[in-house]
C-alpha cells in the first residue's frame, strides 16, 4: 500500500465492477430466513436489554443495580442505533416485506429523525462518499479533517470541537442536514431549515421526556439516580458511535476525491471510490455487532443494502479481490485506527502546508515514529492526483 492513490485501467474497472456486482448478486440470492432470524433475535436482545435496564434502574439506590441498569441501557441504545437502526434504515431488510423491518418506517432512539438520516446518510454520504464539498460526513462541518480545507485560526479548536462532537454526537448527527456552518451565508433556505428543525425538535422532545422526565419521575425519590443513569447511557452511546464512525473514513490510508473527477463515474469507479475511501476495524464477533458491523466499512460501502451480518462472510472474498487488483484493504484494530484519527485531528488544528507544497518536500513527518504502518499524510495529494487521474482517464477515453 502506498499513499499514492491506486489507479486502474478502464478494462480493469469494468472487470472489478462486474466481479463486485456478481458477489452482490450471489448474496442477494441467498437471503432468507437466516437473515430474518438474525435481526429479530438481535431486536429481541435489544428490547430485553431496554426493558431489563429500565427495570433495574427502579432499584438504583443499590449501586450494583444502578451500574447494571446503566450498562444494559447503554448497550440497548448502541444496538438500537447501530446494528439495528442504521442497518434496517439502509433498507437491508426491505426484501422481507415486514413493516417492523422496513427501512422507510423504522425510527431509532436518537435525536436525528429517521427521515432526515435517510437523506443525509443513505443518499448523500453513501452516494458521494469522500467527495469533498458533497460528503458532509467529512468533519461534520465542525472539524477540519483534511488539508484541503484551508486553515483558519478557528481550527486551533479542532480537538475541542471533536471532543464536544463525541460527547454530544446524537445532536451533531441530528444537525447534519442543517449545515450550521453555512448559517449566515445569504441563502433562502430558511423555510426548509425550519422543517428540519421541527422534525429534530419532536425527536429530541420525545427522548428528553422519556429519559429525563418520565422514567426519573416514575422512580420516585430515586429520580436523580435514574436521570444520571439515562444520561450516562446516552453519553456512552454518543462516544462509542463517534469512535466507530470516525474510524470509517478518516484513518490514514483512506482517500478523498474531488467533485470534478467523479461527475461521470462508471459502476466500477464508484466501487473503487468506496473501497479507497473506507477503512475497516478488526475485532471479535461481539465487537462487530456492537459496531453495527461498521467495522466492515469497506463491505458496507460496497453494499450498503445487504444485511450487515453478511459483511464478515464476504470480507475474505473482498480482500482477495483487492489483492488481485493491487488495491489497499485498509484494516486494523480499533486503537491504531482511532489513534491515527486522533492524531489527524490534532495535526490539522495547526496550519498545514498546502497539498502542493507538502508534496514537494515532506521529509518531515511528525508521526513517523508511531507504529502505524501507513504514512500519516494519506490524504494530502488528493487534489493533484485527482486532476491528473481525471485527465488521464479522459485521454484514454478519447
Amino acid at each position, binding site marked *: 500500500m502506498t499513499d499514492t492513490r491506486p489507479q486502474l485501467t478502464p478494462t480493469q474497472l469494468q472487470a472489478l465492477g462486474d466481479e463486485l456486482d456478481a458477489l452482490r448478486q450471489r448474496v442477494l440470492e441467498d437471503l432468507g*430466513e437466516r437473515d430474518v432470524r438474525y435481526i429479530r433475535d438481535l431486536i429481541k436482545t435489544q428490547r430485553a436489554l431496554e426493558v431489563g435496564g*429500565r427495570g433495574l434502574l427502579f432499584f438504583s439506590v443499590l449501586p450494583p443495580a444502578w451500574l447494571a441498569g446503566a450498562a444494559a441501557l447503554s448497550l440497548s441504545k448502541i444496538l438500537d442505533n447501530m446494528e439495528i437502526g442504521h442497518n434496517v434504515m439502509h433498507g437491508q431488510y426491505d426484501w422481507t*416485506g415486514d413493516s417492523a423491518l422496513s*427501512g422507510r418506517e423504522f425510527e431509532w432512539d436518537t435525536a436525528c429523525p429517521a427521515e432526515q438520516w*435517510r437523506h443525509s446518510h443513505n443518499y448523500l454520504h453513501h452516494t458521494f462518499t469522500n467527495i469533498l464539498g458533497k460528503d458532509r460526513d467529512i468533519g461534520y462541518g465542525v472539524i477540519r479533517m483534511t488539508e484541503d480545507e484551508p486553515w483558519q485560526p478557528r481550527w486551533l479548536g479542532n480537538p475541542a470541537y471533536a471532543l464536544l462532537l463525541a460527547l454530544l454526537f446524537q445532536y451533531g448527527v441530528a444537525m447534519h442536514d442543517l449545515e450550521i456552518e453555512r448559517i449566515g451565508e445569504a441563502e433562502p433556505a430558511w423555510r426548509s431549515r425550519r422543517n428540519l428543525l421541527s422534525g429534530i425538535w419532536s425527536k429530541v422532545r*420525545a427522548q428528553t421526556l422519556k429519559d429525563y422526565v*418520565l422514567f426519573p419521575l416514575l422512580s420516585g425519590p430515586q429520580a436523580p439516580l435514574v436521570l444520571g443513569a439515562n444520561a450516562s447511557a446516552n453519553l456512552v452511546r454518543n462516544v462509542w458511535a463517534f469512535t466507530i464512525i470516525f474510524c470509517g473514513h478518516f484513518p490514514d490510508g483512506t482517500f478523498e476525491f474531488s467533485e470534478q473527477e467523479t461527475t461521470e463515474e462508471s459502476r466500477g469507479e464508484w466501487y473503487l471510490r468506496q473501497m479507497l475511501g473506507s477503512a475497516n476495524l478488526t475485532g471479535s464477533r461481539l465487537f462487530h455487532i456492537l459496531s453495527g458491523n461498521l467495522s466492515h466499512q469497506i463491505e458496507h460501502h460496497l453494499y450498503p*443494502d445487504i444485511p450487515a451480518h453478511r459483511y464478515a462472510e464476504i470480507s475474505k472474498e473482498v480482500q482477495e479481490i483487492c489483492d488481485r487488483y493491487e488495491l489497499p484493504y485498509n484494516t486494523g484494530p480499533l486503537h491504531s485506527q482511532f489513534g491515527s484519527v486522533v492524531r489527524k485531528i490534532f495535526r490539522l488544528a495547526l496550519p498545514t502546508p498546502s497539498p502542493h507544497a507538502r508534496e514537494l518536500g515532506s521529509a518531515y513527518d511528525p508521526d513517523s515514529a508511531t507504529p502505524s504502518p501507513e504514512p500519516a499524510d494519506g490524504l494530502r495529494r488528493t487534489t493533484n492526483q485527482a486532476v491528473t487521474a481525471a485527465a488521464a482517464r479522459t485521454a484514454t477515453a478519447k
Partner: protein
Amino acid sequence: MLTRLHERATVGEQVFTKLPQDGQASQQAVDARSGETGRSRQLPSAGRLARRVVGSSLLEALAAPHGVDRYVELVLPGFSLRDPRAEVVAVRYPTPNSLTLRLRPNELWHGFRAGQFVSLSVEIDGVRRTRCYSPALSEHARAELELTIRVHPEGLVSGYLRANARPGTVVELAQADGEFVLARTRPEHLLLISGGSGITPVMSMLRTLCDEGHDAPVTFLHFARREHEVAYSAELQELARSRPNVRLAFVYTRERTGGADRHLSRAQLRRVDRRYRQAEVYVCGPPGLIATTRALWASDGHPERVHSESFLPTRVVASPGEAHGCVRFAASRIELAGEAMTLLEHAEKAGLTPAYGCRMGICHTCTCRKLTGQVRNVNSGELSSCEQEDIQICSSVPVGDVELDL
C-alpha cells in the same frame, strides 16, 4: 405497509355493523339496515381492557420511538395495536386441492361485506408474501373469518399454507377490500353465478342472506370441472332443501353428464330460473364466464344488473425488457404506456415527483410499493412478479402491466 393498505381500505368503507355474536338473524338484519354499530352496547372484554392499558399515551411515551406494539409482539405474536392479525383456529381440507382456514382476527379487524376479499400475509423463507382471498362465511360471523384456498401446484402461498397452517399459526391481515358486494338493500330477486374457486364470495353472499332471514328468491348456479371438486356441496344442498326461496344448480364442465349444457347459455338459465332476466346477478369466476354473463344481460338491455369479479392474471410480456404493458400510478390515478425505462422515469414523465436519491439502486429513497405486475431490476436482471412488494423504482423497469402505490 399494512397500515397504508388499511387506510385505503377504510376510506371507501361505510359503517360496518357490529353484531352481538349470539344475536338472532332477524335482529341482525334490522341492525344491519339501521347501520347501528352496536359496539357501545358491548362490555369491554378483557382483551379490550388490556388493549386500553397497553395503548395508553404514557406507555406509548415510555416505549418511544418504537411503540408498545414492537415490544408486546415479541412475547405475543398475535397481539397488535396497529395491525390486524389473526390466529388460525382450525384447518380443514375439503377437497384434494383446497384447504379451509378458520381464523380468529384481533380486534383491529373491521370485518367484511359479503363478496369482498381479504389480503392475507405469511412469511416464507424470511419474506412476507401476500395473497387475496374471499371469505366464505356470512358477513355476520364477525368473531371468525373462514377462507377457502385453492392449492395451486406451483402456488407459493397456497402450498405453504397447505403444508404449514396449524391451529395457533398467526397471519397478518389487511382490511377487507373490493367493490363486489351485495347491495345494502338486498335485491328482490338474486342470481349468484360462480365458477371454480369463484364460489367463495357468492357463498358468503348466500350465507349472509340466510342469516338475515332473506326470503326473496335466490338462485345459486355453480360451474365446476368435476363433481368432487365442489366445495360446500353438502351445505348448499342442505340450504336448498331447508329454504324454499333458494334454488341450486351445479354444472360439471368436464364430466359426461350435462351434454351440451356445460357452459352458460340462455336455455340453461331458463331451466334453473324462469325469471332470470329480472334478477340482479352476482358472478365470480374465470374471465370467460363473466364475459358470457355480461354479454347475455347486455343483449337483454340490462347490463347494469351484472356485478362481477374475476381473478384476472396480470398480463406478462414474454421477452423481458420489452415493456408493452401499462404503468398505473394507483394513488394518483394516472396511467401511461410502459416503455424501456425505469419506473421512476415513467413517474416523472407522468408529471409525478416521487422521492429519489442516488438513482442507482443503493439508497432506497425511492422505495415504493408495487401493487401488481412484473418488473425487472436493471442491476441484477432479476424478474419479480410478487404482489404487494416494495421495490426501488429508480432501478426497476416494467415488464407488462405494473401498478404502483404512487
